């Protein structure tokens, strides 16, 4: 029998801090010592902030060979005022390729807002990875987001991200391997060994000098760089962090802003396509496209291959809405689906579609049973991996039978042979690290994603870095 969240809370105090010592993550390898790298490829991570409702993202279209998926879905998601049910005939089911739950053989469909993703799925460019989570789900936004970002379900005090641990071992402080189109360094990239550029746009990386006294600018730049170096050399951690941010910013302030004109001049039609979508996700993906174009064009000092962006608004406790335009969850889905479709077309035109892997995740899914017009916090949900993947459905749909739920949520289970077996987030990350980033299997296990100890039916004790989507 599976462990419930309540039982976990009862014993996690004793378990905390035991197995995963911080030391596992605290000793980065010498730079590039393992020669593991993305090579000429790119990794893009899109975070859906707030907890995307997975059950209204990848939706059972029928009951399937074993089980009663559609029946359970319709019991949980009602129709009528405030009802969130997506009728079977509204689902976007691919016509040219199959979209079948591997666990039960049941037909699945995309939420009507996800037209862009459905189109890419039909072309074989989308891996839907179902039922992604970790043992003993945490229903706090903050806690669960950290768990996903750090790949640390036991919250052992790790403060680096699953990508950050790889970056720290392979890049130095003067390099900028990653760019986040947002205000702060994302948790996936968190570490202190190398620089992550965080910007709202490449043009905004310009340094603000006094334009009336342009001849003074070189003196100011030199002084600022010297101050940043002194701060780094002080050894004081906070001051050092400010120095690191200052130095990478000053370096990037020269190399990044020209990417804006380069892209607009040479790719006007794609530039206009993102504008046509007019959403923040479209604009942010365009900034990433500008950097990729800069790398592909050989622009000096542009070397970033790891990117992150986020799209917010998924905390749909109320007014989640009907599956049609002008409704919240529909518009959110439309925003990401359309933006990803345009980004993929842009990458295809640049000749890098087979070099880009875009990962979509959210800190949790939502309650299987809806409330009056929305859904409360939940557990496992689907991820998408888009780009150079073997398209299809991976992982099993969770069991949404009312009797199978724990406090209204689906259970995490690693039980082999279970048609509803969960996909551990570390298997997804491990697959990406092993097959896309080229990190050796043993390196992943020893310094990025250590296994849990415990009952193999309840915990992630057997790695499975070959899910097949890459």
């Amino acid at each position, binding site marked *: 029998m599976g462990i419930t969240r309540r039982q976990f809370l009862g014993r996690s105090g004793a378990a905390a801090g035991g197995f995963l010592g911080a030391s596992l993550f605290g000793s980065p390898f010498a730079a590039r010592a393992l020669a593991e790298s993305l090579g000429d490829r790119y990794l893009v991570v899109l975070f859906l902030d707030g907890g995307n409702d997975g059950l209204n993202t990848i939706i059972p279209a029928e009951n399937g060979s074993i089980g009663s998926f559609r029946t359970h879905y319709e019991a949980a998601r009602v129709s009528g005022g405030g009802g969130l049910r997506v009728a079977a005939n509204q689902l976007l089911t691919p016509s040219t390729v199959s979209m079948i739950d591997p666990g039960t053989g049941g037909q699945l469909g995309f939420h009507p807002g996800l037209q862009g993703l459905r189109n890419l799925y039909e072309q074989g460019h989308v891996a839907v990875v179902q039922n992604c989570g970790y043992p003993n789900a945490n229903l706090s936004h903050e806690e669960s987001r950290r768990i996903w970002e750090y790949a640390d379900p036991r919250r052992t005090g790790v403060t680096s991200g699953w990508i950050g641990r790889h970056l720290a071992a392979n890049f130095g402080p003067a390099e900028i391997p990653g760019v986040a189109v947002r205000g702060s360094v994302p948790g996936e990239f968190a570490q202190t060994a190398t620089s992550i550029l965080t910007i709202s746009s490449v043009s905004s990386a310009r340094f603000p000098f006094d334009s009336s006294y342009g001849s003074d600018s070189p*003196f100011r730049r030199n002084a600022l760089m010297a101050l940043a170096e002194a701060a780094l050399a002080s050894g004081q951690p906070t001051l050092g962090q400010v120095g690191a941010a200052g130095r990478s910013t000053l370096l990037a302030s020269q190399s990044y802003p020209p990417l804006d004109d380069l892209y607009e001049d040479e790719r006007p039609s794609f530039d206009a396509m993102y504008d046509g979508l007019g959403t923040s996700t479209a604009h942010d993906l365009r900034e990433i496209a500008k950097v990729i174009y800069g790398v592909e064009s050989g622009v000096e000092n542009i070397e970033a291959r790891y990117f992150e962006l986020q799209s917010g608004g998924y905390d749909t406790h109320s007014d989640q809405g009907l599956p049609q335009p002008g409704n919240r969850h529909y518009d959110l889905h439309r925003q990401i689906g359309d933006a990803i479709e345009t980004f993929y077309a842009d990458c295809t035109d640049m000749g890098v579609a087979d070099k880009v892997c875009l990962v979509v995740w959210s800190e949790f899914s939502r309650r299987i049973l809806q409330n009056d017009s929305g859904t409360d916090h939940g557990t496992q949900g689907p991820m998408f991996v888009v780009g150079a993947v073997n398209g299809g459905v991976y992982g099993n749909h969770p069991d949404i039978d009312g009797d199978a739920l724990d*406090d209204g949520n689906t259970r995490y289970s690693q039980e082999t042979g279970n048609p509803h077996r969960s996909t551990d987030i570390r298997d997804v990350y491990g697959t990406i690290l092993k097959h896309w980033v080229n990190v050796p299997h043993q390196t992943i296990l020893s310094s990025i994603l250590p296994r849990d100890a415990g009952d193999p039916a309840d915990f992630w004790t057997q790695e499975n870095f070959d899910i097949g989507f890459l």
Partner: protein
Amino acid sequence: MGGTMGDENTVLTPAEARHLLRRTGFGAPADEVQRLLTKYGTRGRAADFLLGFKLASFRPGGRDLDDRQKSWLVYMLKTKSPLQEKLVLFWHDHFATNNTTVGNSKRMANQNGLLRQHCKGNFKTFVNAINLDAAMMVFLDTVRNQKFQPNENYPRELLELFTLGVLDSNGSPNYAQEDIVQIARAFSGWRVDDRDQPFLNEGQHDYSEDYPERGPKVIFQTYGGFGSAGRSFAGAGEGEPEIAAVIDVLFDHRDSDGKKTIARRVARRLLEYFAHGAFSVPSPATTAVVDDVVAESGFDQTWELRPLLRAIFTSDAFFETSSPAPDGPSTIRSVKWPVDYAVTAMRTLGIKPSGKDGRIDGGSRRRLIEHLVNMGQEVFEPPSVFGWDWENSWLTSRTFLARATFARDLTVARGNGGTHFRPERLVDLTLTDPAAIVDEVAGLLGVADRIGPEEHDVFVDYLTNEGTRSSLDLQDEEIRESKLAGLFALILQSPAFQLH
């Protein structure tokens, strides 16, 4: 961390007085430093003076969000009780509510007034007021909480963020999901009327007798030190007494050390804010300081914030961040919040925002609030109920550029009005020695003790165009506009000025 070396009778050093003012206000003007040292002298007397402000009834005014954001910022620029606003900022982060979700700036302003009213008062009274604050009730869906399916949004954050926290100092859980489910029942049916007043819609309230299958209204059967029976909150009657009963139980909650959970968490959070970020990490050392200030103030008995703040402002832990530069591996520093950074710079330079929309009168001519948006702290718009991320999270490439742009814009606001930068009013223009000019400007900006010899050399190099001239004529307007204003900009942009 911290022994028991100093106490309320410890005499303040100048560096400590500057630190106290920087942390409890917006910058450390020389005359205020002098007043603390000569008139008050000791930690205890200085803390009593700083905490003695008369509560203002101020609420940000205006017709819309833009007006009210400007109204609060201008108030911070002018106030004679900066600690009051530092506290309101803290509570705005703690009980984080944003206008994007609330969609009603008047309710945001009313909440801001409520934060000010309770900022140094009784924390339990404060939480009871927040429970039925209109902005909060909309923000966390209390107004959508109905008996058929009690909405867990507010109860979860009440436990996780506003009071207990997810885990205690030992990493043990403070509550279970079932506790949230039960507490959600107490808040069911609460609505806001046309005059923003809370009322109970009885038809939407989850009365115990209507839903026997949901079990008794009992919480903390697993955690909280109440034993396996837990504690009922149904006895006092349903409606407002029921919410008050929930709060009573929460404030009785004890952690796995048998200590009052809320007392420790609030003390820890205030230490993190006023002293330094290391308090965010539970450890035997930080927990010992937390327990000291709680015991000294009796906060776990009275829930009075003012004595707790006094205990913090007189503790050694608070003064650990006060040491002068140069910084080394063991120096402890903290990152200034963007609002602190901007308001301190403007108060120090004597620059007011310009025009109805509150612009900074130079460079990009952005509105003050736009600068703060770019720096990552738009007041009335914390990104989520978690508030803002503190410390290193404040400083990334994007926000570093935003601070640099703000500093540039302030120092190129050329003209003669109150919205312009007029260094001739601040600096002795007869100075010609570059090193003396650096000392003068660093002193004015309140960071003379935060600039080490190496940084000092960098500023001198800048003034001398890297050694190509040996003196400056500050009477020359062009020199003032290029190099003197440039020095102000550089110091405001320097790593040292971002910290305190």
